[in-house]
């Protein structure tokens, strides 16, 4: 479903992604690990179509189409979901209003009717429970005054409501205590399905104890330098990233 081939991308004339290739097939879970500043968030942003990133080479196909032909909101409507590393606040716009606008936009793009308010409220409340957020979060401003963990769970809530084709989770686990980590892991595991692809960007192998990936990749200096299965994550934990550097060199 996602085919990244030799992708290079710049931020402010600085090359960050440098010949990155990766293929994700439906049903697969890929973990991407790597040192700080390797370009993990950049990859998510480039895939999601954020302004300020210039693609200078390579191709990305999503469901057979050139991803770069689509605007950011069109990519979202096509089923790409990015759970942000640092979710931003939108004061005054209630979470409920935001979620409804989002779900309606995505449903409309799929040719479905917008949901009735009553049905939506029911659904949103049920999902809140699943991610262990109290219902009054729906009334509060988007991420307004949320703690770090609440923001991450709110990202998960959005992902569950939108049922995307491809989920990209950018360090959704960082800053979470073990209970919250398990909530996130359960949410992601529930979303695992034969027609959905999942990319989990993480710094720590502990998340992968709960979300068992099909593949683990190491991203360093803007490209995938090593791929393997779950055991690669364990090795990384033991030896750190310098071991990779040596091996690449």
């Amino acid at each position, binding site marked *: 479903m996602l085919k990244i081939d030799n992708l290079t991308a710049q931020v402010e004339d600085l090359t960050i992604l440098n010949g990155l290739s990766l293929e994700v097939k439906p049903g697969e879970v890929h973990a991407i690990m790597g040192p700080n500043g390797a370009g993990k968030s950049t990859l998510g942003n480039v895939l999601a179509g954020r302004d300020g990133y210039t693609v200078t080479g390579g191709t990305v196909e999503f469901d057979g189409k050139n991803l770069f032909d689509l605007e*950011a*909101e069109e990519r979202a409507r096509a089923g790409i979901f990015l759970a942000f590393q640092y979710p931003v606040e939108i004061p005054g*716009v209630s979470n409920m*209003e935001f979620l409804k*606008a*989002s779900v309606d936009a995505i449903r409309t793009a799929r040719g479905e009717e917008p949901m009735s308010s009553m049905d939506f409220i029911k659904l949103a409340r049920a999902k809140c429970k699943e991610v262990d957020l109290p219902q009054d979060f729906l009334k509060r*401003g988007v991420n307004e005054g949320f703690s770090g963990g609440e923001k991450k769970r709110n990202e998960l809530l959005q992902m569950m409501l939108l049922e995307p084709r491809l989920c990209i989770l950018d360090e959704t686990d960082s800053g979470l205590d073990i209970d919250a980590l398990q909530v996130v892991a359960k949410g992601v595991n529930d979303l695992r399905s034969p027609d959905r692809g999942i990319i989990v960007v993480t710094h720590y192998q502990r998340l992968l104890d709960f979300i068992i990936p099909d593949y683990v990749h190491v991203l360093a200096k803007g490209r995938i330098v090593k791929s393997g299965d779950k055991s690669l994550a364990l090795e990384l934990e033991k030896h750190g990233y310098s071991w990779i550097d040596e091996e690449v060199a």
Partner: protein
Amino acid sequence: MSEHIEEYLKSEYSAGWVTDVESLTIPPGLNEDVVRLISAKKEEPEWMLEWRLKAFRSWLEMTEPQWAHVKYPKPDFQALSYYSSPKSMEDRPKSLDEVDPELLRTYEKLGIPVHEQEVLAGVAVDMVFDSVSVGTTFRAKLKEAGVIFCSISEAVHEYPELVKKYLGSVVPQKDNFYAALNSAVFSDGSFVYIPKGVRCPMELSTYFRINEAKTGQFERTLVIADEGSHVSYLEGCTAPMRDENQLHAAVVELVALDDAEIKYSTVQNWYPGDSEGKGGIFNFVTKRGLAHNRAKISWTQVETGSAVTWKYPSCILKGDDSIGEFYSVALTSNYQQADTGTKMIHLGKNTRSTIIAKGISAMKSENSYRGLVRMNPGAEGARNYTQCDSLLIGDQCGAHTFPYIESKNPTAVIEHEATTSKVSDDQLFLCQQRGIDAEKAVSMIVNGFCKEVFKELPMEFAVEAGKLLEVSLEGAVG
């Protein structure tokens, strides 16, 4: 700043068409004879003419105020016409049935209910077209409740005692340059009287339309709520797109007697000028209310139009335990300039005031909040709470806050909070990443920012106001 928003902010003004009616417009220029002519056209009694002339003579001695944070070419008062009326109105139609249908269509096109059987039937409407009131709906029904709702011109004839007693009682003729000008040449506006103990059975509203080119509109509105009465009133304003600036210099006076309550809402959408800053209305307005014992006056305004706005709806809290409120959303885009706010003058004991002002600036506009809170020596235990929030869209616009606080009573408490925020690219990207397009995202963010004020508007208009903001920020996404 992403290009998206820039594109998106290129607004389309939807009320910018002209009604094709034959008008009688007096030649440009201003002198005593013009004042006499206006008075004669309205067949006014002698006392009214004298009142105007007195104001005119004061005006001649006054100079235009310079302190506002706005820049504009000084209007040439001799190049303006001070009276313009559709020709068909010269025959003084006695009821709405006799009014030229073309005029009524003007209001229908603006979405205003001109027929009493329409859906929005809970609202009575006075329609002011250039210098005259075209008609007022639901007068009979209101009369049953003892409520008087008519044009100020009619009130001068039919309720001279009330007009004599209250006109100029809150905003004196010499109050300021534009108030004096208005007092001399005021054309039309609404008159409302709610008798003792009556709760007005419906929303009252007035729609002002400036149609004719090169004319000024000098609205004059007077609302009197007698003891223990209650009224909610709304005004709306639009004008055609014209290249030259037009002047709207209004005076609105509210009198809330003991235990009365007046809720006055404005949705101002005068033509703001084009994207180069050409044309648009100069909106120079004096609005003030006087609250007696335990009375309450509440101003709510949504200001999206005009090239230049200069407006400070104020409350004089004269009576003990009286309450003043000011809820404001002022949105400026392109080259618009707004200097708006309020004055809360606390005279009585335990008087209370609340000010919630939201300014939104986009493109190259300038948006200023200017507010005065004064606690006089007699204002024992008085309180004020002020909250002033600015939202910036883009980085070429300006937002300014000028709070003035004067307290002469140590028991009075004044609280002031101010914030400035920006619609950020991160917020927009979050919305887009969730499938919401930039246009919808900006309007959602702006609406969220204004929520506290919108909830003060009468139900029917809260939705309208939200849509208006959306239109004011509208444009193709690039």
